[in-house]
């Protein structure tokens, strides 16, 4: 019966969404339970944040320079190349900064987390934690969530600054816009609401990335494949799903924040 199958599919999806929500809520709750996991959080901040600095800088400067280049040749047609600083800064702070940082972190850290948890699952390491009375969500996922909530906004802020510097390199140093005009436009156009909006986006993206990547890795054994193949599938699907959800969430948040 097609209707029955449709109903079963819908129930399965709703149930899965519920499990995602519980997975996140439990991990979030465990962040504040005693004993606090300071050392593990610092280790994860180093892994997620510190080790991503170079790749985020490279991406941000490249995007900033491209924005500067495109923006200049578009604006110069209208004789308003002076607003390049504003265009680059607003594009980065409102949209590209949070989204690109999130996408880069999914590739660098999200995939690693999904694979790590997947391997721990298939080699019974997660079960071993369970048998010791150690909650695997508290031990494995909570520190990652806390570290991502700390790292992503900071990396986003860094990407914004580096991107603006990238725009400065092309607009001012290469194409000859006045340096003072570039930065004064940045200062006058960017409002606190823009920064807060970008910050909120990065917080939400952090939750999406950790929940999706860790959930996929954690439940690798429930997938259609087993062993190494199962881990590879859960890692790939974690990266794809997290990226798609970041893009969708970005659109929804932009429409709400405008």
């Amino acid at each position: 019966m097609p209707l029955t199958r449709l109903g079963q599919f819908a129930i399965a999806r709703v149930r899965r969404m519920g499990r995602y929500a519980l997975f996140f809520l439990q991990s979030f709750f465990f962040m504040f339970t005693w004993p606090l996991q300071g050392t593990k959080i610092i280790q994860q901040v180093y892994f997620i944040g510190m080790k991503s600095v170079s790749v985020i800088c490279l991406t941000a400067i490249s995007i900033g320079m491209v924005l500067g280049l495109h923006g200049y040749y578009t604006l110069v047609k209208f004789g308003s190349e002076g607003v390049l600083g504003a265009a680059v800064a607003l594009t980065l702070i409102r949209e590209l900064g949070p989204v690109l940082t999130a996408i880069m972190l999914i590739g660098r850290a999200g995939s690693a987390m999904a694979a790590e948890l997947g391997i721990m699952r298939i080699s019974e390491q997660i079960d071993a934690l369970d048998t010791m009375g150690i909650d695997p969500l508290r031990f494995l996922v909570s520190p990652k969530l806390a570290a991502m909530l700390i790292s992503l906004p900071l990396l986003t802020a860094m990407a914004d600054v580096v991107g603006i510097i990238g725009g400065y390199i092309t607009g001012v140093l290469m194409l000859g816009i006045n340096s003072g005009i570039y930065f004064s436009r940045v200062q006058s156009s960017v409002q606190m609401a823009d920064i807060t909006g970008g910050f909120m986006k990065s917080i939400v993206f952090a939750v999406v990335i950790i929940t999706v990547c860790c959930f996929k890795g954690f439940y690798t054994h429930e997938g259609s494949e087993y062993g190494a193949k199962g881990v590879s599938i859960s890692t790939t699907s974690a990266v794809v799903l997290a990226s798609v959800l970041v893009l969708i969430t970005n659109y929804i948040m932009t429409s709400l924040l405008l």
Partner: protein
Amino acid sequence: MKSPIIKFENVSKAFNGNKVLQGIDLDIYQGQITTIIGKSGGGKSVLLKHIIGLLEPDGGRIMIDGQCLTKLKGKARKSLRQRFSYMFQDSALFDSMTVYENIALPVQERGGLTPDEIRARVHTRMRELDLGAIDNEYPSQLSGGMKKRVALARALVTDPEVVLFDEPTTGLDPVRKNSVHSMIAEYQQKLGFTAVLISHEIPDVFYFSQRVAMLHDGRIIYAGTPNELQRVSDPVVREFIQGFENRGGDLADTIHDGSWESHFREEMTRMKRHQVPFALVALTVENLEEILSSSDPASQEVAQRFADRVRVQLRITDTCTLIGPSSVLLLLPFTSLAQAKMVCAKLGRALNGLEIMDIQSRKGPCLAISAGFAEVEGNGHPERTLAQALAQKEIFYQFSVC
């Protein structure tokens, strides 16, 4: 009779329609070592995982200290789990942590001990399990046997009330295997924990297990003491423990075993620990080659029956290995030379029974069996001891149909 600490009541479990457990009823008593035996892939690990709640039963219930495990939630379940330890079949060590971190983790997470106390406790367990200075090694740098011992140290470091061992000695050499078995037995006596052990190490596990349960086709077909197991007439149980599960080939296919030397070394380790000798008996069918070359199927039947009859008559801890085209080697633990001769005399009387007599009406060559004895003491060498046994032949049974 004591009330059981763990009680399975009609527990069933299926995976994708494949029924693995079909109405398990099993009692596990406090302070005892209960060994679960059964064929590989028969659901023993699944049964063990139910005890600690890693798997939930589809039907029936598991009672622990009178509480239904499936109804326990939250803190009650967590505190129950902290009374248990589980040693996984594949060790399940945390591969991104060092050996020290692996062993220390359960006590660190439980809290209540200072770092110095934790260090002392971890190092005590490591020393006891012959784990030298490998604190900073990672599991991937260790051999299979070493990993097993690290996993055992991790399971025992919290002084648990119940320890579940999933094939703790698979992949270990005979000396290490004996050492792990001794560890389990000694710690069990010292700490008094309840142990549930899955093992294929028959008959070794019968030395230290108070109870044995056999899982077959998803059901417990036997549960009792190892001594009672010896008297069980169920053919499935007997076939399993005597180690010849539905052997279809003829004797010539099975004579090149060669595993007796590892049995010998195991017994040597045991003998050194308990200071009790063991005996080797070499039974030789003097004219087996003649029987095997004969085209008369009745002759082969005689050879086959001989080996089977010998095995059936042995004690549960004895091993019987075919070591050559005409020789069967019996390894009798905790047995002196005089006792070995008594065993052989009993064997001779038993062999003089109906099944061998049955061939009287058929044509075939004479069957003559000799026995050579050797008692092993001190530093026995397998080859030399075997040569000694083979040299001291005396005919203990002769049957002629000529």
